[in-house]
């Protein structure tokens, strides 16, 4: 398999220069590195610019409702534990409309990888504030600047006990592909929040703005993703320096292990025409 095997040929509808292109390339690269075949990969998305990504790849795709990618991915993984399930979602899709699912999907810890295209804006609906928009940022709706405090997805994920918390930058595709591959290899819920410039609606967090700040966390001499205190500090670092890389990592039993799904053939391969309920019916006699 090479990257072309993961291309779909569907016409790409993103703005030229959008940070989403880097994420698309990185994901193909990661799947090649992982040695996956298209038919065994499922990409699930909601609605938004980010959520269009699965159409541009040659993989199984479920492009569902705004905010609801995580429950669909959960159901699909439960039905077929052998699928590699990856969610491509936006900051609005995942942290806003789907915020409740984000919290509980981490608690559930199914073996899925979630790639959030975090452009700190609602791209598809033309530039309203998202849960990660910086306070004060002016939009056509937030005329006096965004009032709400931003959500901190990485700190939230660490606090919820997520076993793989990473930040990537769509301007550093090679590094991002490595994070994605590591996320897929991680057993359990893996979150990769990707700094994704939106060239049309986010005039602050641009490629240039990020390039001045982003550094690879592995280069830090104190780097220790197993240390939660360190991880919180790195997750919160958002100044003239912004770390990218695996920020927190911990082994946790997965949902599939705890529920016994891992010990059976995939649910979708169970024969159903031989199911005999006679024994349970007699329990009501």
């Amino acid at each position, binding site marked *: 398999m090479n990257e072309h095997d993961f291309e*779909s040929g*569907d016409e790409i*509808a993103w703005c030229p220069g959008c940070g989403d292109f880097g994420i698309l390339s990185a994901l193909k690269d990661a799947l090649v590195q992982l040695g996956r075949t*298209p*038919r*065994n990969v*499922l990409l*699930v998305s909601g*609605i938004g610019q980010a959520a*269009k990504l*699965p*159409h541009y790849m*040659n*993989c*199984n*795709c*479920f*492009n*569902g*409702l705004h905010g*609801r990618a*995580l*429950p*669909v*991915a*959960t*159901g*699909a*993984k*439960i*039905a*077929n534990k*052998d*699928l590699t399930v990856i969610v491509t979602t936006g900051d609005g899709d995942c942290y806003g409309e789907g915020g*409740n*699912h984000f*919290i*509980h999907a981490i608690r559930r810890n199914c073996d899925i990888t979630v790639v959030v295209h975090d452009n700190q804006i609602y791209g598809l609906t033309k530039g309203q504030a998202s849960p990660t928009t910086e306070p004060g940022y002016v939009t056509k709706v937030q005329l006096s600047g965004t009032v709400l405090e931003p959500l901190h997805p990485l700190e939230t994920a660490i606090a919820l006990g997520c076993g793989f918390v990473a930040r990537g930058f769509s301007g550093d595709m090679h590094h991002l592909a490595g994070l994605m591959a590591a996320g897929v290899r991680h057993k359990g819920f893996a979150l990769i929040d990707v700094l994704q410039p939106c060239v049309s609606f986010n005039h602050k967090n641009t490629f240039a703005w990020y390039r001045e700040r982003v550094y690879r966390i592995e280069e830090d001499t104190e780097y220790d993703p197993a240390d939660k205190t360190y991880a919180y500090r790195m997750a919160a670092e958002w100044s003239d320096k912004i770390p990218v890389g695996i920020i927190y990592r911990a082994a946790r039993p997965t949902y599939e292990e705890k*529920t*016994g*799904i891992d010990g*059976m053939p995939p*649910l*979708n*391969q*169970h024969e*159903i*025409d031989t*199911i005999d*309920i006679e*024994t*349970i*019916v*007699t*329990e*009501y*006699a």
Partner: protein
Amino acid sequence: MEITVRIAGEAGQGIQSIGRIICRAIKRHGWNLFADQDYMSRIRGGNNSFRIRISDTPCLAPREKTDILIALNRESVAIHEGTVRKKGLIVADEATDDVTATTLRYFNVPIGALAKASGGKSLYENSVVCGVITGLLHLDPDAVVNVLKDMFGKKGEETGDKNITAFREGNRYTRDNYFSDAFHLGRRQYGDGIVINGNEAVALGAVHAGCKFYSAYPMSPSTGIMASIARFAKRFGIVVEQAEDEIAAINMVIGASYAGVRAMTGTSGGGFALMGEGVSLAAMTETPLVVVDVQRPAPATGFPTRTEQADLDLLIHAGHGEFARVIYAPGTAEEAFSLTVKAFDIAEKYQIPVFIMSDQHLADSYRNVTLPDVGALSRQRHVIPTNGQSVHPYKRYALTGSGISPRAVPSWIDDVIYADSDEHTEEGHITEDARIRTLMVQKRFTMRMNLLSKEMTPPSASSLSRTEIVLVGFGSTCGVMQEACGSVSGMNVGYIHLPQVWPFPAEEVRTLLEDAPEAKIVSFENNAAGQLARLLRRETGIACCDSILKYDGRPFTVDEVVATVKERYSSL
């Protein structure tokens, strides 16, 4: 021979377990029963009751009057005494009630004292009460002990033994102190079949149909379905997941269904409202979906533990946009079972949302039933079979002209599968093309509605020739309509019960009514608007001349329906 026993007390006193034990004992003695529950939305206190109607002829609905009232607290006597027949009996604990002397009407049993003597815990009071009822009805104590063993068997030997001691004490006390033979049931023959309620019937249907994933958010009165499936999950390799909300539940089910398993969710009106967008998603992505709505009185939180049939309009219109759907409205536990199996078949065959509309009365009422022959119910999978078949290039939404695009499961074929909630091409990619849009709408909606008209679950009806009045109902009113029609003296009253309300069986209803050209047609519904009457008129042009409606949160009783019919129509 017919007796109604009502067990009443406050929440937390174990009324439901007493009721279930007695129901199963009665069934095993060869009697028919119908038991409904009236309970409040609270865990302790208040007043709940479990009413068991017992008869040598089939019982399909509750009766108004009580023959034996078992009052587990003083308040229950005050609340229910009025329903007790002249020759009826009130049983109470002398410690908790002012009624001290045992007479023909009052029987005082030291329930608490007997329980303490048996095991030291008030926990065993329920078993004492079962013993008392066994004594009054002259049931075989050993047979009832077997029921107790079956039900408490798993709770460990010691608890089981103490329950049996308490039961025997209650039975002995009754035989020694209550001498009337007024309620002698005894044994007819061993009763076959089972005792289940509507929720359990749906759960058994789902397990039989091969449901592998059930996800829901707890909501009365639907939670019993989740609990019943959970009970059997390990044995059948089923995953039951309590979702964070109903939106998650329906989307998880859609994800699982897309990935190739049969999956279901269940809720009540409020949760169903939250699922609306998911219903529409299933329709657009052509993902099979089965949803149970166990209705309760609304709007908003309404009466969490009571009954109503006011979600008919909601279910017909749920989800934005136009698409085909099927709505079943089972009237009995047997129908709830077989229509659940059928729901999975139809959802998969036509790749559509299918709803099972139940309600608290059906969900919580127990009856002795014999499940329909499962051999007659199809479990055929409607998917392109497994094992990497070469279907290349695969088009998930192929326009085949038949109204159905063959459905493949991810990783089972060698190509990939795109499912999309946007309007899409045959391949499943986003499009805004006008011609494709038109063809896709026709496929999802009109073509499938036509196909579904050939899969109709027909109405059931009494013989309608020479009837003066025809009652038309759907769902849980089936039994009470049926019994009431046979009990109105001096008038010829018939009924039509609709186990499927969408697509509406217009032809079938018209044909049935041809037998009764002169009859007055009356809709019979647990709602205030007469939603079925409106639907009937819209779909057939047939107008009801009246509607019998009840929306106080309580089910109809046979007596009440007979009285209403006589009062309103005998002078016609």
